[in-house]
């Protein structure tokens, strides 16, 4: 019911309609709820209506945070492996 997906705006038709790329197909969507839309923007699409624009800078910031956690985990894995190796050395 609340299913909504990010789609890319491919062309603007008028103030209230645009063409969006939905799974490789161009479909008309209603954009009356979103202001200052440009081609190339991504919007969250719900029951045929764009609800909001996605902010690419904020998305990049969130992904950078995940990247950091990924590096932390890699360091933890490496430490664990080293620990196991030195245990083996003792055995």
């Amino acid at each position, binding site marked *: 019911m*609340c299913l909504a997906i990010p789609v890319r705006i491919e062309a603007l038709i008028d103030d209230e309609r645009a063409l969006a790329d939905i799974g490789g197909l161009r479909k008309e969507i209603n954009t009356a709820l979103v202001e200052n839309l440009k081609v190339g923007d991504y919007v969250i699409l719900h*029951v045929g209506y764009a609800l909001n624009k996605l902010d690419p800078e904020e998305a990049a910031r969130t992904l950078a945070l995940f990247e950091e956690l990924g590096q932390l985990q890699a360091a933890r894995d490496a430490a664990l492996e080293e620990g196991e190796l030195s245990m083996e050395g003792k055995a």
Partner: protein
Amino acid sequence: MKYVDEFRDGDKARAIAGQIRQEADPARTYNLMEFCGGHTHAIFRYGIPGLLPPNVKLIHGPGCPVCVLPIGRLDMAVELARRPDVILCTYGDMLRVPGSGRVSLMKVRAEGTDVRMLYSPADAITIAQQNPDKQVVFFAIGFETTTPPTALVLEQAKKLNLTNFSVFCNHVLTPAAMHAILNTPEADSGALMLDGFIGPAHVSTVIGSAPYEPFPEQYGKPVVIAGFEPLDVLQAILMLIRQLNEGRCEVENEFTRAVTREGNAKAKALVERVFERRESFEWRGLGAIPHSALCIAPAYAAFDAEKRFGLEQLHGRENKACECPSILRGVKNPRDCSLFGDPCTPDNPLGSCMVSSEGACAAYYSYGRFSDSRIAVEEVNV
């Protein structure tokens, strides 16, 4: 798909889960409620319970619009559909929900009535234009995500001067339901174990993060708004654990790529114009909640199906063995229902929580059997 795939990366998911295990204090339990059914679905689909340490527990909230609609309102839609002059249009999930005496809209359609499934509410306008000798009623349900499209459709109907179109409005409000959860008898008696909320994704794109600010202030419950992808949910869980560990209690936003404090001002203004708050509205499981739902504003009264057809509020008969009401209050689990899996399944739903993919019973049935058995084993060991 951009903005989807990179938020589903398995290695990153394990990394965030690793950080959760590092930071979660083994001496305490973290009971976190995902309000929204979209999160419930994602949590089971991606096996998130299996990635969490045993003392981080997820409670499924009532944020599934199909699940919380009381049977009486569905019975009213059934009555409408049975009128010979009516074409009743609604979202697909609503067709399968059993009403009183297990009568669903699907069953009513098999009787020869005209019930149609919509992908978009805009299609209801087209159907009205194509059928001038029929009354087309859009049976509208949903939280704040789905309300602005309904508002646009009402505006359009007014602009077009349609005389054969109306909306049976059942739109409900998220913050009101969160207040209700924190005020149930179980919450007052301490039976509801709840340390914080994972806040809705798409609802919040519309209403913003500000409406959650009372929950830390009034109830001491932190809220972290999360996107619907698995990395979003895990990150929000980590943020909640950090707040609880540090003794902080605030509204935080993990879904910054789509949610601001103010939300979508244009959509909010439109909803203000077209709808009004109801004094009170009945929720399945939670009972009557004050100011928790919308009705159509006087300026659009000509398009209000309740007025046009003089609908009277029905009360409906619940299936007594169905545990949906307690599940929706966060105090029972689908496993606690004796009908779960046999005979209640997504193909043969006996309650609303088994119908929508956002319902807790459907999510458990489709994805949850493995992770759930893991949870059960751990609870036995405690």
